[in-house]
């Protein structure tokens, strides 16, 4: 089955992570090749799994345009990671720099790993009538390609902020450590959700922590969250120091952050907004209806438009713009996952 092959790809991504770390610490070229090789091997397995899944979908739907496996949460996550890894390897090849491979492999590995743990449906499902359209291919693939581009600009942007932060009181430092603390807390919270749920299908995000039925546990979780943030703020210097010692080129990070957005923004506009509007016009009888997914896509679009105007017209540069890029991806993530988890609307295919 396709998802078993994709699990293997996820495993290879996780193996690539320590190799990238060792490479960064030793700058040993052989280990560098090994890291890239492992990540590429993971990608090959991933592509093979993706093609297999495509075939499984084709066997049900009998239409090339409508067999692209991005029709539910699991498939979309798998496709997102695929784009992310391809994008990263392209940058690595083009710039001959491996400085943020660690973070890409972590995100790729964790994303695939979470689909294993969460009760996400992995079975191939037949298309519901709403998705039966040739716009599916264009709208959804391009949206996720742009999400992956934004994800890359998020990684490099965050790295850029961290390595350029000076003191504990600087906004950059507080911003980046708070974010790291939150990310780690959310990861732990999800793991607890998984551990406490009776079966994988019953997992509900934040139900065992922040959103617990018992007010005591809920409040305790909120306190824990702030404790996490404070711990990261207090000891974040260590992370900053380690990353600074790796001597990652700040110009390189800033440029990738920009390129990710300069590439992702037009793709997002055409694939996400324009094709989405055309499809909505055909399926629902209106091109724009302020559905939560539509609204949050527009907000995402505004955030990145803000980034471009700040950079080009106002002449912002350095970690100031990187913060906008990081914030942009948080909004993107909400558009992708948050809308389906917390709000209701017409785009319910992406729910679990």
């Amino acid at each position, binding site marked *: 089955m396709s998802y078993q092959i994709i699990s293997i790809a996820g495993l290879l991504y996780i193996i690539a992570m320590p190799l990238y770390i060792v490479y960064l610490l030793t700058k040993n070229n052989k280990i560098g090749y090994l890291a890239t090789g492992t990540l590429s091997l993971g990608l090959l397995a991933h592509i093979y799994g993706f093609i297999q899944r495509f075939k499984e979908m084709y066997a049900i739907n009998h239409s090339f345009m409508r067999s692209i496996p991005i029709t539910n949460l699991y498939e979309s996550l798998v496709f997102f990671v695929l784009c992310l890894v391809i994008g990263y390897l392209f940058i690595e090849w083009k710039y001959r720099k491996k400085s943020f491979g660690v973070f890409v492999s972590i995100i790729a590995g964790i994303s695939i790993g979470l689909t294993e743990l969460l009760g996400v449906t992995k079975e191939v499902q037949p298309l519901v009538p*709403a998705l039966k359209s040739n716009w599916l291919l264009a709208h959804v693939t391009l949206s996720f390609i742009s999400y992956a581009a934004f994800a890359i600009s998020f990684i490099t942007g965050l790295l850029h902020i961290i390595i350029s932060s000076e003191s504990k009181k600087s906004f950059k430092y507080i911003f980046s450590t708070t974010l790291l603390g939150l990310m780690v807390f959310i990861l732990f919270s999800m793991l607890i959700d998984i551990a406490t749920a009776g079966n994988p299908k019953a997992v509900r995000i934040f139900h065992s922590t922040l959103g617990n039925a018992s007010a005591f546990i809920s409040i305790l979780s909120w306190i824990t969250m702030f404790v996490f943030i404070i711990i990261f703020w207090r000891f974040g210097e260590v992370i900053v120091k380690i990353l600074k010692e790796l001597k990652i080129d700040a110009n390189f990070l800033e440029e990738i952050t920009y390129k990710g957005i300069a590439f992702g*923004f037009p793709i997002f506009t*055409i694939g996400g907004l324009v094709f989405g509007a055309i499809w909505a016009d055909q399926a*629902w009888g209106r091109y724009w209806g302020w559905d939560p997914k539509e*609204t949050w896509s527009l907000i995402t679009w505004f955030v990145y438009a*803000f980034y471009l105007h700040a950079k080009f017209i106002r002449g912002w540069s350095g970690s100031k713009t990187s913060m906008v890029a990081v914030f942009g991806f948080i909004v993107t993530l909400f558009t992708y996952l948050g809308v389906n988890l917390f709000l209701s609307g017409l785009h319910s295919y992406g729910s679990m």
Partner: protein
Amino acid sequence: MSKLEKWNEKIWNFFASVDLAVALFIVISIGAAIGTIIPQQLEPEPTIRFFLKFLSMNNATKAYEIVSLLDLNNLYHSWWFTFLLFMFALNLIVCSIDRLPNLLKSYKTAPQPLPHEILERMPVKRDIELSNKSSIADKVLDILKKKGFSTNIFQTPDGVQLQAKKWKKTRLAVYLTHLSILIILAGALLGTFFGFRGHMNIVEGTGLDFAISDEGKTIPLNFQIICDKFEVDYYENSAVPKAYRSYLRVLENGQTIKFNGKDTVVVEVNQPFSYRGITFYQASYGFQPAEHAEFRFTYFDESGKEITIKSKFEEKSKIPGKSVTLKVIDFSPALGIDEQGRLFNMTTDMINPAVFVEFDIGGKKTHHWILKKIPETWETPYGKIRFDELWGAQFTGIQIRKDPGVPLIYAGSILLCIGLFISLFLRPINYFVTIHKNRVIFYSPSSKGKVIIEKQLDELINKLKGDKE
């Protein structure tokens, strides 16, 4: 300058500023985000129920008062959100009028050599010395021309200054992008004032000549839409719907309108149809037995001939060629069997339609379940009878729309994509080269994509050196 002119300029500059644009991005985003959280319904009840999750009853009612005062429950059509969008449009127009002429002028003015101090302030600089002194300028010129740059050469007191430009006109694309957004907004405006949206629920076998608008008003149509049949297709052995399909007919002045030579048009999700500028979409459906509802069977007689039997609920119908009557006494749209083996109805969707029929042969009564999807149940003691459908018991929900703004939306969208692609993928590249004796200095004023520009410069330099050595 008079006071009035000063004010005029101040207002103009305010609307032309990027600060206003950036501020509007933020305010519109926050406003739009609020609208996804607070229920967008005009009745007070959903809003109060929403606030009751974290407020007391008293405070929730107060919260609702604030919400309705600021139109937060109808946010996207509120006066202030419309005002923000209007400001956004105004900002785009003024900003373009303010900047475009300068840009156009810059294309017309003849290029000038730049003073040394300006060059030195540029973010990218490469300084090399070549061993060979002869005709360096020509070689640099040659390489740049081969790369597609248009070049200008100047003699200055400091030596030769070379200016190379590529894709300089692509900066116009930004204004195309801005224009396209205005076109889209204009299209939306046109749709709001001259278009309408509505809904019609048509029961199978009936017709309607009006729709109900989203505001609850009646929209008369000059023709009648008749639903001959509505069906839901399911994937085999599953309750997952495959297609929702309405067979519609258009009746105008008592005449059936033909579409592609056919009387009926099929409307599915993602497959609307248009007539007289109005588009009809498959939107919903539901169970609603009408007076004329009837059960339809196919009877296979001994010779294999198929004969249709139509029977209303609890009315006897004769089986052709036999002295047996058939009467439907129970119906289930989705017959299921629970763990104890009892029959029950799962939903009102026609997932697994089944009828309970009573056969009567001279007062002797027998009962049978006949299921549409299970051929084994079609075999009865009185021959093979297939249950086809219960016709006239469902309605199809058709969404209708007329929007004269759509062509503008499409045109604007296409221009938006073109504009964005050009302005982000084909950014202008400028190089300035000063050559003094055998010393060559490359400058570039762009800080975006600095790493790549430096790489390209290195390539140029390598080529230059390669030619020498």
